[in-house]
């Protein structure tokens, strides 16, 4: 029997990082008291009218340019009509037939190590729309509360083609998109606060066959839930199909608690949204000069930066990709190299990707919140390069910096007496003492036991409190034992 091919497309709602709402002047700040950030327009009082926020359009243009899409010179806002208490106007202003962004693509890196591969996901479109308010079903004595603070927050809905073939690819796509929208500064990326929400369309087919019927998993606000929800959905759909039950098009919700998806509504009870062009808003016209202006202000994009890291710093594709996974990380890295010098580009990469990343990960911090700043890390690498520090001691200095035991690398080295011993006379004296005290080990080495050599090195380093230059210790010890 043929195996099943998993087909996944993702729609992402990205809250745009504008100060005010998409069609009103009310602020978009998260976490305010309910209904304190909703003005007459957001409340849909009789007679109020929407006025488009140019900053939101600029975000859309920036995104379109960043993914190599077509930015429509003329797009149209449409009304999506349905009744719900947190939708004050009884319609959502969105874009339907003519979106502001069409096409484009995103490079994703899937898996790790030997399994790692790269892939390009095509994007269908991205359009501007307003967010709805929130219905609060708890703590209201059996009634529902409505908070309209979020109503009118600008969203960019980004729709991918069904190009993903596994939950890992879906997560890689979501991560790449998440990094990109933060990279170009259009979204704060805060998934807990709902700034970046994914819907996954999942279907199955036999390879080579037409697309199967899809089910849409709504509102996934973490990468883990995205993966879990898709994995569950895939198992469920395969089981249905193999039991001979056809898939019915539906919208489903994922319950992280139980790990299962449950049907919210099927196609039969889907809304007829009665889209039509919003007569309160003129078509959105974007001139060449505006596009050129946004283009000029665009930061170097991940792909270009990765290529430059490889050519300018001689990094491997893997290192360059890792360091350009986010703009903060890339900027951090370059600031480290600026201090340590380009000749140290590779050790700088290792420190950022391995030591710093591990330490950040351990405390669940973002690189922006690193207690060790790029200048400090840069001088640390420089002190290794000029042999002031051994790698091992450098880790101690790093730890000291992390814990705020000092602000400058040199001060910490000085105060804690961590300077590496490179004076061969001093090292020889240490070696002589160790050889004198460990006659048995010396005999073992001379009898051919290489292990004894390492034990002797250990003894010397111990005597040097770890500060002796390991390479010199090795060389001098071997000379003495000959």
């Amino acid at each position: 029997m043929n195996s099943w091919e998993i087909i996944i497309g993702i729609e992402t709602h990205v809250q745009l990082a504008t100060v005010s709402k998409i069609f009103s002047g009310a602020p978009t700040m998260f976490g305010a008291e309910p209904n304190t950030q909703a003005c007459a327009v957001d409340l849909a009082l009789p007679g109020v009218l929407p006025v488009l926020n140019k900053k939101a359009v600029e975000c859309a243009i920036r995104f379109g340019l960043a993914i190599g899409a077509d930015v429509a010179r003329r797009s149209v806002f449409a009304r999506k009509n349905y009744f719900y208490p947190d939708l004050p106007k009884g319609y959502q202003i969105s874009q339907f037939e003519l979106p502001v962004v069409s096409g484009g693509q995103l490079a994703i890196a899937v898996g790790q190590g030997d399994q790692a591969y790269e892939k390009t996901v095509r994007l269908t479109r991205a359009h501007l729309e307003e967010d709805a308010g929130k219905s609060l079903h708890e703590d209201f004595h059996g009634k529902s509360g409505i908070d309209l603070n979020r109503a009118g927050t600008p969203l960019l809905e980004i729709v991918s083609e069904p190009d993903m073939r596994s939950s890992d690819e879906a997560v890689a796509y979501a991560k790449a998109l998440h990094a990109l929208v933060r990279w170009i500064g259009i979204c704060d990326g805060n998934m807990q606060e709902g700034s970046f929400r994914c819907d996954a369309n999942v279907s199955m087919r036999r390879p080579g066959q037409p697309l199967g019927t899809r089910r849409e998993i709504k509102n996934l606000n973490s990468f883990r839930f995205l993966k879990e929800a898709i994995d569950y959905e895939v198992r469920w759909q395969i089981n249905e199909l193999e039991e001979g039950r056809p898939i019915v098009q539906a919208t489903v919700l994922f319950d992280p608690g139980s790990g299962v998806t449950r049907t919210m509504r099927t196609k039969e009870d889907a809304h007829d949204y009665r889209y039509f062009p919003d007569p309160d808003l003129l078509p959105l016209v974007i001139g060449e000069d505006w596009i050129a202006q946004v283009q000029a202000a665009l930061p170097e994009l991940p792909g270009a930066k990765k290529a430059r890291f490889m050519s300018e710093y001689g990094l491997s594709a893997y290192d360059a990709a890792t360091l350009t996974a986010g703009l903060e990380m890339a900027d951090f890295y370059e600031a480290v190299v600026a201090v340590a010098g380009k000749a140290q580009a590779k050790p700088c990469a290792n420190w950022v990707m391995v030591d710093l990343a591990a330490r950040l990960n351990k405390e669940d911090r973002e690189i922006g919140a690193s207690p060790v700043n790029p200048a400090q890390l840069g001088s640390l690498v420089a002190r290794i390069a000029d042999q002031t520090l051994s790698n091992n001691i450098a880790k101690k200095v790093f730890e000291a910096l992390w814990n705020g035991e000092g602000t400058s690398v040199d001060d910490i080295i000085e105060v804690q007496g961590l300077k590496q011993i490179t004076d061969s006379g001093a090292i020889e004296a240490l070696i002589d003492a160790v050889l004198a005290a460990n006659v048995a080990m010396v005999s073992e080495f001379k009898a051919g036991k290489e292990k004894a050599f390492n034990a002797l090195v250990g003894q010397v380093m111990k005597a040097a409190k770890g500060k002796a230059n390991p390479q010199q210790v090795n060389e001098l010890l071997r000379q003495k034992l000959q």
Partner: protein
Amino acid sequence: MIKSSLKQLAAALAAKSVSSVELTQWYLERISRLNPELNAFITVDPYRSLAQARAADERIARGEAGPLTGIPLAQKDIFCTKGWRTTCGSKMLSNFVSPYDATVIERLDAAGAVNIGKTNMDEFAMGSSNETSHFGPVKNPWDASRVPGGSSGGSAAAVAARLAAAATGTDTGGSIRQPAALCGITGLKPTYGVVSRYGMIAFASSLDQGGPMAHSAEDCALLLNHMAGFDARDSTSLEHPAEEYTRELAVESGDAPLAGVRIGLPREFFGDDEQSGCDPGVMQVVQAAIAEYRALGADVVEVSLPNSKLSVPAYYVIAPAEASSNLSRFDGVRYGYRASDYADLNDLYCKTRAEGFGAEVKRRILIGTYVLSHGYYDAYYLQAQRIRRLIARDFAEAFRQCDVILGPTSPCTAFRLGEKAADPVQMYLSDIYTIAVNLAGLPALSHPCGFAGGLPVGLQLIGDYFSEARLLNWAHRYQLNTDWHTRAPEL
């Protein structure tokens, strides 16, 4: 005082021969005497009106008065007015007190005008007779057994009965011009986008336009000076340089003030193939008015508006479509009427809207919902939009040959209360001459031009985009040479 123009009232206020408080009291007294019969006002608030009048008197005393300072104006109850109940003629908003001012209200306030009250109207401006108002029909001051027209029927009746010096109205398919014609006053619908729609409760957003209703073209021009202008809060507001609409009125012009003006008479309104079933009495009066325009020096050319017969059907797709969406916000959740007993959310919506809206509003919401539905959108909505473009093209073609199009405003004079209420299609046809203008977004005015069967007849002047000042000037020249606009019903 009863026959004073706005200019004369302003002069009297400036000369202190009357104060704004006295003037306001005079109108309020007249309202309390005549409104119980006419029902032109939904809300009168003497306390607020007199407070404004006192402020106006102080401003006059400081020598800071403008042309409208201290003059009592009636506001159609479609304009949100801070602190005033703003009902839009509906039970749905019968308890709604607006927390903000419409741009039009804000501007008239800034000019120092006194709000004398909120006028009755067809519910959500949907109607041509003022009979769909939740607050009862308005009576025509010329004959209380007849309708004043609609939807701005309260404003038209208030001006005709001298319950206000002038009034604001809104026009989606003829709602300023048709009641102006039926009540014997002058009313102007400006080019779409000239008057801000912010705070004007939306019926059909792409067609709605506010405008002045007054005794004369001169008064309308003065009022429009303080209503029009770009508003950043309305995205469809036009960034057109501010205009003095009164600028041409005082120009000396001799015996033939309209020399060189080319009047277009559409053969679809006048020819043998006249399609609209105009009342012969009305047509006769209109022909006499055209003769007067010729006597003032204008030339007449025949033009054609071949798609005008499609305007009513196209309008009754587009306007209800937009209305069905615009009126969705009236759901009983945040403000306005809410049904008292409901089982769940859906029941709340159903009962609130079933009880809060009247029959005509519900009819249009149903039509609008239908024409936007999946599978019908192309056949109805898109088709109607195509017709709309054809109609605009017809006018563009006509305006190559003429400067203004003349014709009847309404095919009939004021009809009896209840006469057309049971037959929506007959009612819709009352707007057969006015609707195409809204579809094209053009400016047009109606002014009184005589009587048929003792009832006023209106002449409609349709101009090209932004020709308001010229339309008002031409009507003004006619009114300088005739006295129809000075006739008042006996009350």
